[in-house]
């Protein structure tokens, strides 16, 4: 090998490099004299060291051994975590977090307590963000046409470019941004516009934020954010609006929904949801109507007519539709101002207009609906991606700067962005990864991860957070603010730019306020202010229905628009309702599947305006007839070693004009694809794993005591127990993601999941009852039951699973010999076995993210939920230091902390006043598989049935 390979896959390959050989000769003179075979051995032995040395361009690697301090900093205690308030971003919105760091190494993110938009709760994206920080596939240094360059080279490029831009005011310069809420970025963009007044800005966001604003403009005549005040609602009617589903608003909605749900002894909020592809909202709705997206505008107009909104007329409705609308209308009447009507972003401007008019009519505005100026892209007058592509095609763009967006992958297929990009002279991609766009641009400039950045952002409610780094960058990367400053010819410190922004806002008391904002994690009082209700827009006639199947695009619940595709934690997280991991499916309604003899996994070809995509079928119970669901975010080419080639790419068939709902055709192909799902069977088969209560019978029958041959264990002072409220679970998976992060749960990869070997300690069981066309859905999180009479403990021949005095069924990893008897005997099948060495799979090559308080399990060892025993121990230590007893709330498990709806409650059942004890006395309390006499410590609260079959006026 004569040329030096830039990307090498093995030490041998790298060693072929002459420069490297020279370096070896200099470093290890003796190695140069080895005969070839001995040199090979030498290289093999030294592989690890060379692997680290070979990472060109990194200033610091996270993968080096720790060395103790010579002079110990006063506050830094090895092994004792420190916490920093900062934020990660999703769709540009801040997700305020409290970052746990060990020796300067962030390992876990949780929602920031006290922040009005998280209240300390989290979602899956927030949990997984820390893994992205350590992703070895991130761009590690600036590159030009793939070759590493220095930031000095980048500066020189910018200064040369700047001379061109300044000539004509930047007429042939374009800046393509992803959505942002950063005040500092907004300030810099203003500067950009003043320096290059002719340059055009474009915002591209594949996840619907643009359409959300477009709907608001259609409904209210101006761009607005609609903030649902779910905690003030008693009835919500949703038209294909999955507001409890994944996304930047999920957390806030779920928190408020759960608060409203628990407002009284009986459910305080009822959801009426008309949806096409079942989502979280439809799953927990008391009254769900399955309806194709093209029906939504008719349905909402009929509701408007029912509520007496001027100009509305009831269209032809089916029996079910009429029935559902009658109930929804009656509920709105009964709610007396506590009602809200919402329209999904894919339902079109017509539905959005009707929703606005109904909300006006029922007095929702100001009560259950708050309108504010948009939190995102403040003051940035932007054009769309479509206009950019037209200009690029026409050769009007010489320089394109893409900031933190991946349009090559996420642009709708109808735009053909790749072709347009090839006509641009100089393309500069600024992003976390050298992704699809980075590969096709002349320059790729790597960004810092949020956790290593100085920046700022606003949460969905408008509250600003100053993003502070919790770790020094270990790659040769810069923050977006620094790179923008470079465009203006300045080399700035990352924090100086952010401080400059806030110096204006904080005024004289800058130092004090800045410190307070960093410590608190948000700027108090920065929440977006409501504005007066503007006039509702004009109503145009409903569009006529076009023949063909409704094709609905949805964002992936775990990898989102594709930006998280390289995160093993999220790829392996079972998606709500389908339990699919590692990929996406084409959801088809059961009746359609029956007609065309389609089974799960059969390959389907979707054709939209001649663009085609192939994907495996998934028969989705409860999906609306004549509707096909596609999920965006998969089928990536340059995501990294984890995300490449997983699933199909639905962007390829996405039309730019109607990006969420369109028409198309589907045909079945003669081949199949294996689906890595974690739950094979979805009916309860007549068992009562999930129990229900209703207003008519709000209590379950008392269980009969189960006799036992074994004497009860003597209990220590604390006896740990957990109660999970099934009524509050929306299946969002935040608990599973949090458990993965907290407990170093391994990622095993698609093939292993297909074999049934996923390692999650906590699974969200999902059941359906009723007709497959229109079922009721249930979510039931199942962690270890921590049985008092545990069958597993009896089975282990070597005492590897034993009972603790506090009632925890402990797993002693280093005693385990792997007979798997415990798992065989476990009636709940909550144990997980390391069939192979899962510690360092290609799917999860990162070790620094591991929680140092939790053992990493080796091959041949059983593992399971421990009730976060490390947290219990830490709480004990803290209480012992103060010489006090543990208080309720001292121990919070990772799943409990994450749960946005507070469905998981953990505590001491010996303390009659603890929250968990109170819940155990509830009429809804029950034990899973009570009849087995295992006496679990993890128990459940029954689901409220507030649906049509629970009502007295049953028809």
């Amino acid at each position, binding site marked *: 090998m004569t040329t030096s390979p830039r990307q090498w896959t093995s030490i041998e390959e790298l060693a072929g490099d002459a420069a490297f050989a020279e370096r070896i000769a200099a470093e290890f003179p003796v190695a140069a004299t080895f005969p070839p075979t001995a040199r090979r051995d030498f290289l093999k032995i030294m592989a690890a060291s060379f692997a680290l040395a070979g990472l060109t361009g990194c200033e610091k690697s996270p993968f080096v051994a720790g060395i103790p301090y010579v002079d110990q900093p006063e506050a830094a205690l090895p092994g004792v975590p420190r916490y920093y308030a900062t934020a990660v971003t999703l769709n540009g919105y801040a997700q305020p977090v409290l970052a746990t760091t060990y020796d300067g190494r962030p390992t876990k993110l949780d929602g920031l307590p006290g922040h009005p938009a998280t209240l300390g709760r989290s979602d899956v994206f927030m949990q997984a963000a820390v893994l992205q920080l350590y992703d070895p596939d991130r761009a590690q240094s600036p590159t030009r046409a793939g070759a590493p360059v220095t930031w000095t080279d980048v500066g020189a490029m910018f200064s040369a470019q700047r001379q061109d831009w300044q000539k004509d005011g930047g007429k042939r310069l374009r800046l393509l941004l992803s959505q942002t809420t950063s005040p500092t970025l907004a300030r810099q963009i203003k500067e950009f516009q003043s320096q290059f007044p002719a340059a055009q800005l474009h915002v591209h966001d594949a996840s619907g934020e643009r359409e959300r604003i477009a709907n608001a403009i259609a409904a209210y005549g101006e761009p607005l954010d609609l903030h649902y005040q779910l905690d003030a609602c008693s009835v919500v009617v949703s038209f294909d609006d999955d507001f409890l589903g994944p996304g930047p608003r999920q957390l806030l909605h779920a928190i408020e929904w759960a608060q409203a749900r628990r407002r009284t002894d009986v459910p305080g909020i009822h959801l009426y949801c008309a949806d096409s592809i079942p989502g979280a909202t439809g799953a927990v709705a008391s009254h769900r109507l399955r309806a194709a997206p093209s029906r939504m505008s008719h349905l909402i107009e009929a509701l408007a007519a029912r509520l007496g909104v001027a100009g509305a007329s009831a269209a032809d409705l089916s029996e079910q539709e009429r029935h559902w609308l009658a109930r929804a209308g009656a509920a709105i009447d009964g709610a007396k101002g506590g009602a809200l009507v919402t329209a999904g972003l894919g339902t079109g401007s017509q539905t959005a207009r009707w929703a606005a008019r109904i909300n006006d009519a029922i007095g929702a505005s100001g009560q259950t609906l708050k309108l504010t100026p948009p939190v995102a892209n403040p003051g940035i007058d932007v054009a769309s991606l479509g206009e950019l592509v037209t200009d690029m095609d026409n050769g009007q763009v010489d320089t394109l700067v893409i900031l933190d967006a991946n349009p090559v992958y996420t642009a709708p297929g109808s735009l053909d962005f790749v072709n347009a990009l090839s006509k641009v002279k100089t393309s500069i991609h600024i992003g976390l990864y050298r992704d699809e766009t980075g590969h096709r641009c002349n320059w790729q400039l790597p960004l810092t991860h949020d956790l290593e950045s100085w920046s700022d952002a606003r949460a969905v409610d408008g509250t600003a957070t100053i993003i502070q780094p919790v770790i020094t960058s270990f790659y040769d990367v810069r923050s977006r603010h620094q790179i923008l400053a470079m465009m203006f010819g300045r080399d700035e410190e990352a924090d100086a730019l952010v401080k400059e922004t806030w110096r204006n806002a904080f005024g004289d008391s800058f130092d004090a306020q800045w410190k307070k904002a960093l410590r608190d994690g948000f700027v108090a009082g920065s929440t977006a202010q409501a504005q007066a209700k503007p006039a509702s827009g004009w109503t145009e006639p409903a569009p006529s229905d076009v023949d063909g199947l409704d094709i609905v695009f949805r964002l992936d619940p775990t990898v989102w628009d594709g930006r998280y595709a390289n995160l093993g934690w999220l790829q392996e997280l079972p998606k709500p309702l389908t339990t699919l991991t590692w990929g996406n499916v084409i959801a088809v309604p059961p009746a359609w599947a029956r007609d065309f003899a389609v089974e799960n996994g059969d390959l389907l070809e979707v054709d939209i305006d001649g663009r085609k995509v192939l994907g495996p079928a998934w028969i989705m119970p409860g999906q609306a007839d004549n509707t096909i669901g596609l999920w965006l975010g998969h089928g990536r080419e340059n995501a990294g070693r984890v995300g490449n080639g997983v699933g199909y790419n639905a962007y390829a068939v996405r039309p730019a004009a109607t990006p969420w709902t369109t028409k198309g055709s589907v045909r079945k192909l003669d081949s199949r694809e294996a689906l890595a799902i974690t739950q094979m069977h979805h009916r309860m088969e007549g068992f009562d794993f999930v129990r229900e209560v209703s207003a008519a019978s709000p209590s379950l029958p008392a269980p009969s005591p189960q006799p036992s041959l074994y004497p009860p264990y003597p209990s220590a002072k604390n006896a740990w127990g957990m109660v999970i409220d099934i009524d509050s679970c929306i299946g969002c998976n935040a608990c599973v993601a949090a458990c993965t992060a907290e407990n170093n749960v391994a990622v095993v990869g698609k093939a292993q999941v297909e074999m049934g070997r996923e390692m999650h300690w906590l699974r969200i069981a999902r059941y359906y009852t009723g007709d497959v066309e229109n079922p009721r859905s249930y979510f039931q999180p199942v962690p270890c039951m921590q049985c008092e009479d545990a069958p597993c403990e009896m089975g*282990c021949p070597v*005492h590897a699973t034993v009972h603790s005095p506090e009632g925890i069924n402990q797993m002693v990893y280093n005693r385990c*010999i792997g007979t*798997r008897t415990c798992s*065989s005997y476990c*009636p709940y*099948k909550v144990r997980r076995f390391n*069939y192979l060495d899962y510690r360092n799979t290609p799917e999860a090559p990162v070790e620094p993210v591991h929680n140092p308080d939790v053992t990493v399990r080796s091959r041949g060892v059983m593992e399971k939920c421990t009730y976060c025993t490390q947290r219990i121990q830490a709480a004990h230590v803290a209480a012992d230091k103060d010489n006090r007893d543990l208080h309720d709330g001292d121990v919070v498990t990772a799943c409990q902390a994450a749960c946005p709806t507070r469905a998981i409650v953990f505590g001491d059942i010996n303390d009659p006043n603890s929250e968990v004890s109170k819940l155990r006395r509830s009429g809804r309390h029950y034990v899973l598989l009570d009849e087995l006499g295992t006496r679990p410590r993890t128990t459940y609260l029954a689901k409220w049935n507030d649906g049509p079959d629970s009502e007295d006026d049953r028809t």
Partner: protein
Amino acid sequence: MTASATDILPTDQSIGDVSRQLTGIPLHFPARRQWWIAMAVAVALLMLFIVSVIELFTRGVGIWGLNVPVTWAFAIHNYVWWLGIGHAGTLISALLLLTGSEWRNSLNRFAETMTLFAVVCAGIYPVLHLGRPWYLYWMFPYPATMGVWPQFRSPLEWDIWAVLTYLSVSVLFWYTGLIPDLANARDRATRRGWQVFLGILALGWRGSTIHWHRWSRTYRIMAAIAVPLVVSVHSEISLLFAASQLPGWHSTLFPPYFVLGAAFSGFAVVSVIAVALRAMFGLENLVTRKHFDVLGKVLLATGLMTGYGYVFEVVDVLYGGNPHDLQTLLDRTTGAYAWLYWGAVVFNFVPLQLLWWRAVRRTGWALLLVSVSVIIGMWLERYMILVTTLYRDFLVSSWSHYTPTFWDWSTYFGTIGLFLVPFLLAIRFIPVISIFETEKTLLDEREAHDG
């Protein structure tokens, strides 16, 4: 002199002929060609086993098709199957010795040999099964510095003791029975090496009356220990399953059901070996059609008893009415693995019915085919019991599937090599039929005629 109806051996052969014939097998091996072919196959299988075990120990039990919930499959299933096969040797030798059924004397030696190597195959499986086999010794109550003992409530712990006890008793019983013949062979050996080898193994046996007296007492005591062991060991094996709470396993029916099933499969293997050895070594004079007849009857009897277990398993569930048990019954009979259940029923019990006919029982190849069917049927049954319970236990959300991988199969077929290689060596180097016991039977029969 003609054989009477009660004779099992033709009485027209001299005792010296029998001695010469049987000791001649190792000393002047008659079926070299067949033996080498069989050995080649066996060694190939053993190689497969070794490769599989290396792969297994290198990568872990994940090379098999196991998952959660099916954490136990081929390893445990074949363990039970092999152990069940082994039990027939003990039953034939020991139980029939105690009951004075002299016909056993032509069969007991190779049946015991079979037991020995079947138990070895069975015994190696729990080791292979472990996630971390290098810590096997933690199952033993050795004085660990941490003071940790095994957990005596665990059926797996009982299992270790049961199998090791059974293996040692089987070895001792087999060896004890072998001593007089080893002396006989020593006396006839012409080459020095054979003389020394057999001489050491014969423990200085001279055939004196006091030797015979002590030997006879020892042998019967060993037999009296071995017979209850068969029952207890296989009952214990069944507790691996019955001690859990899982539907389809948690049943008091399991111990007798397993013991009878074990005897059933074991007698099937004995029949196969009897037919094969008889043809291979021309032992028509010693392993007679009457032996086949008796074996066929025993097979039929144990088979019907096993069938009774099948019936009562269903009756139990229907009578008990536990919804989880009913679900498991439904899964077994109609689920994804229904072919296992019905395969077990068909292979175990349908060809078996041919044995009602005396002519079938007395025909070697017919008995062989029925026996092979039973061996397959019992293998399917063990598979069915494990997998159909585990793949769908209580919570529907953990219902899954199980598919054996190449390594599952290779390890299993490998153990057949592990069984055959030492078995073939044994029939090559030691008297395959108990010489003195056969001679005794012959003598008794003659005396009965003459007397």
